[in-house]
């Protein structure tokens, strides 16, 4: 063999092994630089506050800081498309909301729920039927029987057409045969304000989004769309207790793009577990009126799959799916 060839071959092997070593070492050392946590809503919303709190607490458990980056637009379609399409190296992770199992069915997104690998679920909020305190209905049955007698007359506010709380009201219609007049607002908060002003009859947002006004004696929650009663609202029955099988909730968690290496995922799962169970994180969530709900990746994946199938069917039935 001529020496030149030998040298070049040796060099190739050397370079190759160095490169291999580097990538291996780099993956093993994850993270070596700041991690971007993408939030698909504008700065200041519930999801954003959750993410910023998470990033703040996670400092303790990761050698590198997490920076929150807002990529709002299209009800989350912009941000999720970007998370799904980003390099699966663990340096861009995202807050995954229930929308990742809804948007793909609306024909407005270029991703599917399968494009994400779940890390852990952090928070769950069920839907609820809330009316004004001075409204004539004291129970879900009274409310629904009134709605049945006056089809299209009961105005129900939601956080946007095709959004989770619109689907909550629609699922209720679907199960009980009543007919609401759906009024979309730009988010849950304006809908609650409209209810306070008496411009609509009810909202289907989460208890956390109306809790201040319930405690202030302005609004009343009639029923909660969950399997169990909610903490802090122990006196409010679930719809299931009333024989209406509607359970709809929104959830938030940490996701990474599909194809992220296992060791990176493991580091994130470990750090997220520690962060989520940190007392200061749980305290912060209580203050934000959010329900702490930690679930490991496998359960989180199950929830995503279940909701993905559920919303596909429901949205197809409602004619929202495209």
């Amino acid at each position, binding site marked *: 063999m001529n020496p030149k060839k030998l040298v070049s071959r040796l060099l190739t092997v050397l370079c190759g092994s160095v490169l291999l070593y580097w990538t291996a070492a780099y993956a093993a050392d994850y993270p070596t630089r700041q991690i971007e946590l993408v939030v698909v809503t504008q700065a*200041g919303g*519930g999801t954003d506050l959750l993410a910023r709190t998470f990033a*703040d607490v996670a400092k303790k458990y990761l050698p590198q800081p997490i920076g929150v980056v807002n990529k709002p*637009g299209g009800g989350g379609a912009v941000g999720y498309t970007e998370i799904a399409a980003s390099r699966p190296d663990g340096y861009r992770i995202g807050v995954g909301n229930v929308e990742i199992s809804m948007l793909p069915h609306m024909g407005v997104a270029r991703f599917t729920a399968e494009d994400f690998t779940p890390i852990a679920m952090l928070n769950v909020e069920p839907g609820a039927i809330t009316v004004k305190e001075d409204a004539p209905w004291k129970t879900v049955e009274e409310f629904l029987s009134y709605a049945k007698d006056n089809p299209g007359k009961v105005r129900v506010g939601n956080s946007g057409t095709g959004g989770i709380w619109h689907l909550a009201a629609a699922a209720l219609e679907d199960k009980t045969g009543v007919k609401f007049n759906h009024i979309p607002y730009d988010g849950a908060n*304006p809908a609650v304000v409209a209810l306070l002003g008496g411009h609509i009859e009810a909202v289907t947002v989460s208890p956390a989004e109306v809790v201040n006004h319930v405690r202030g004696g302005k609004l009343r929650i009639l029923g909660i769309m969950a399997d169990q009663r909610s903490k802090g609202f122990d006196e409010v029955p679930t719809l299931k207790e009333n024989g209406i099988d509607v359970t709809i909730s929104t959830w938030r968690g940490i996701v990474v793009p599909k194809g992220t290496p296992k060791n990176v995922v493991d580091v994130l799962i470990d750090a997220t577990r520690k962060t989520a169970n940190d007392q200061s994180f749980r305290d912060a969530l209580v203050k934000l009126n959010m329900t702490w709900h930690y679930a490991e990746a496998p359960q989180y994946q199950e929830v995503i799959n279940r909701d993905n199938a559920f919303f596909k069917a429901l949205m197809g039935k409602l004619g929202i799916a495209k």
Partner: protein
Amino acid sequence: MYEIDMLFKGFANLANDPVTLLLALIGVMLGIVIGVLPGLTATLGVAILLPFTFGMDPLSGILMISGVFFGGIYGGSITAILLKIPGTPAAAATAMDGYALTQKGKAGLALGTATFSSCIGGTLSVFMLIFLSPLLAQFALEFSAAETFALAIFGLSIITSVSGDSLIKGLIAGFAGLLLSTVGLDPMSAFPRFTGGFTALFNVPFVPVMIGLFAASEAFKSLGEEQTRHELKVFIGRVIPPWSEFRGLIVTILRSSGLGIIVGIIPGAGADVASFVAYNEAKRFSKNPENFGKGELKAVAACESGANSCTGGDLLPMLTLGIPGDAVTAIMLGALTMQGLQPGPLLFKEHASLVFTLFAGMLFCYVALLVVGLSSLRLMGKVLEMPRSVLSPMILALSVVGAYAINNSMFDVGLMLLVGVVGFFMQRWEYPPSPVVLALIMGPMAESNFRRALSLSGGSFDFLYTRPITAGLLLIAIITLLVPVLQRRIHIGK
């Protein structure tokens, strides 16, 4: 009186707490910087600051956030006046006359007036918050979709008064802006309109459009101008307006502050709406409305006092009812609840001492704003002494960063460039940019609320005339639209 007594106690509490005062001061300074940078709004500043306030005591945290809020609204006016680059949407109205004054060599006077008007407007709104909260709180709830729609129509009618010389070109710019405002997800059915498949266009990226329209187009224009003409010596001049000038502004400032407070209380309407409304009314009441748009000091005073008095108005329904009117107050609501304080009627009873100390601190913030503002104006004015050949490239670089920062999106930067080119031609062909901004603020508000109101009323158009506030606002809108047309008729007839 109970309130005055409590307020004095609040000042006493504050005086014993120098750290809180320092944090409030830092907040104001930070807010001004954020306001000055195009693309960074008070909302973003408050959101970034929020996690840092978690570890502070409630008073310091909330005061620091308030400082950023106040400073951010005010800071937008500085670049608007000096460079015709509104740092925030509210300052787009200020830019019209503020920049004209700078071109006349009166930058200092304009900046000083803006600072004083901001401070007075803001202070008045805090006093309103202290004394009239319970009285005005219910007003916020009166506003349903029908009322908000009428407000938006009134806002749109202001196009006629910001159109400059050619009404028809102003209207074209306005309706082009309205058409642009329909790009994105339809507010009622969530159908993507005119997006060409770009998810980034699902919501009209308002801030990049504004930066392109004002900043980038101005920079492009300066590229083509003969450089020597631009090296004119602009002196910042005195920043404190002489009493003889200021005396004439007092009525305008008071009226604009009142309007700003009312607009602030209305949920969903903020400083941007307030400054345009204040501008319009100042022009309506002026003896020489033809001076507006050509460097009228009253216009600057009106816009700034209107925008800043909005802050107290915004805070009112949030503190008294727990309903935030916009993104900033929504974050503040989050901050308050994180500190274990539930806004609502009980807040004033259970935490009276804290609330009044907070109010005292807000008044301090506005004094700080005045002092920081006035003392930094000379430094800011140095920008004008920069040669155009450094300034214009810097403005372009700043436009790029600003357009990127709001959504962390390069798409927005490309859009900013495109709008900058369009804005350049608009300027060459004398199409005013302000109607576009106005349309982008009011357009989505008008459309979504009209359709919402129609749904609320079960498909009947009654809401246009059966609701007193709606009917009143629509009537004012019609008058605002017709007056300039009639005036022109009379003018031609002479």
